[in-house]
């Protein structure tokens, strides 16, 4: 597939038919996609069935985007912590981190989301309730204990569980990206930093991570795009994201073309824009950009 905006690597053949090579190199697939978009917009503007579908579904865009952004931000924090754990010399830290990464990467994302929402979150809530029971006997902490006991599983919305589930699932993949990025920096960098008297944390923060970030930005960007797509899985928790609204509209109107054409095109717009952004990042950092 030709990439838009990039010159073809193929040698230009001297003109048998002048101009044909240029036509061949155009990103036809993107133009075709644009045409489909125009057709969809035209349908939305002219056909009432498309119009109602679009108006019903478009609020889901905000849910999809905000869930993806928040979950991805949390997964980056998890990824950094567990990625560092994966290269730790401490066997306890290393094994905990590896356990998490290997287990989570071995489970389908949809199962992780369901498991977190209906098993892990209730388990943690139970734990907090029990902790409250034991705190209530201690005079100073009684009010905190009562607050802990009153926490109920229904206090945690499906949307919050969806965010936790996605972040928990993606954290494992981000951890591996962080680990690989840090390990791609030569050993001499850490040695030079340490030989100057920097602590491990200082060397990581000022020497290793700034270099690793440049390397891992494109793969992190790709994972963000994947997160946007995988956020459709949270519809199993009845969160009203794009996919869930598509399902609802179909079941309310018994129409399939209108909601699913709309949903599909909205996802595509986000992911294709995203991959353009990633390509830009790649080019910016390819030539040792600073």
């Amino acid at each position, binding site marked *: 597939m030709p990439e838009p905006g990039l010159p073809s690597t193929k040698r230009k053949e001297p003109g048998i038919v002048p101009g044909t090579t240029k036509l061949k190199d155009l990103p036809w697939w993107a133009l075709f996609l644009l045409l489909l978009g125009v057709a969809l917009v035209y349908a939305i503007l002219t056909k009432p069935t498309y119009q109602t579908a679009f108006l019903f579904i478009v609020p889901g865009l905000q849910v999809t985007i905000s869930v993806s952004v928040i979950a991805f931000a949390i997964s980056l924090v998890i990824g950094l912590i567990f990625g560092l754990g994966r290269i730790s010399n401490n066997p306890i830290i290393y094994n905990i981190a590896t356990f998490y990464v290997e287990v989570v990467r071995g489970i389908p994302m949809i199962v992780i989301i369901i498991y977190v929402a209906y098993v892990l979150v209730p388990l943690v809530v139970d734990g907090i309730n029990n902790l409250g029971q034991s705190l209530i006997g201690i005079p100073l902490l009684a009010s905190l204990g009562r607050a802990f006991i009153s926490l109920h599983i229904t206090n945690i919305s499906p949307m919050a569980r969806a965010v936790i589930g996605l972040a928990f699932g993606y954290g494992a993949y981000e951890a591996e990206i962080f680990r690989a990025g840090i390990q791609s920096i030569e050993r*001499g960098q850490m*040695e*030079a*930093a340490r*030989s*100057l*008297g920097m602590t491990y944390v200082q060397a990581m923060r000022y020497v290793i991570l700034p270099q690793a970030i*440049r390397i891992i930005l494109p793969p992190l960007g790709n994972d963000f795009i994947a997160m946007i797509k995988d956020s459709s899985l949270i519809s199993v928790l009845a969160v009203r994201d794009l996919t869930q609204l598509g399902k609802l509209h179909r079941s309310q109107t018994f129409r399939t073309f209108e909601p699913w054409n709309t949903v599909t095109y909205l996802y595509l717009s986000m992911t294709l824009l995203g991959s353009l952004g990633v390509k830009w990042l790649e080019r910016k950092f390819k030539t040792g950009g*600073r």
Partner: protein
Amino acid sequence: MEDKIIQIRGVYKSFKHVHALNGIDLDVARGEVLLIFGPSGGGKSTLLRCINRLETVDRGQIIVDGVDVTDPHVNIDKLREEVGMVFQLFNLFPHLTALQNITLAQEKVRKRPREEAAEIAMQLLHRVGLPDKANAYPDQLSGGQKQRVAIARALAMNPAIMLFDEPTSALDPEMIKEVLDVMLDLAREGMTMVVVSHEMGFARAAADRMVFLEGGRLIEEGPPEQIFTEPKEERTKRFLSHIL
């Protein structure tokens, strides 16, 4: 008695199945320039890296400036501030300019204010002959320039000792001199230096003592004149005949 700034006592170190160091005893006096030479795999770099604990020893004791490096409870970061190290492959920080390479540890470790650190860095860049490269990134510098910045980076911490791990062996021949000149200056100023190198010209001009290391053992030691003209060991003689 002379002031021994480094004392190495019965040090053993092995990697997997290789015995890198087989019982090394060695002292370095304050202000001394010691040159370690010998065939590759002889344990030279390992010994050097044990002095600031980039490698831990299996057995034995190393005392640097009164601090027992081999004691796992000792604050090694504190000691490393006093022991500068220069690496074969420079190990400059590629995301920072020459100036920032020299100021980073001053600010984060020595806690010097930014302006003071920059001022010291500029002085050092003058000293190594690169004041115009302050804002250059490492990949814009030649090998010799990189190594001079790396020396300046280590000196900025005001170390009591400088360790050089084959500082010129990754350099093109015409760049070796510019680095050796900086090292010669340092030696003349009385810096304590432990240098792993095969630069025999430098040894003649600056070393107070040379030690020949092979198979993790100290084969011979002595002042350069003696090592060059009448080495006691046949092995030393043979090795020198190959590199001189």
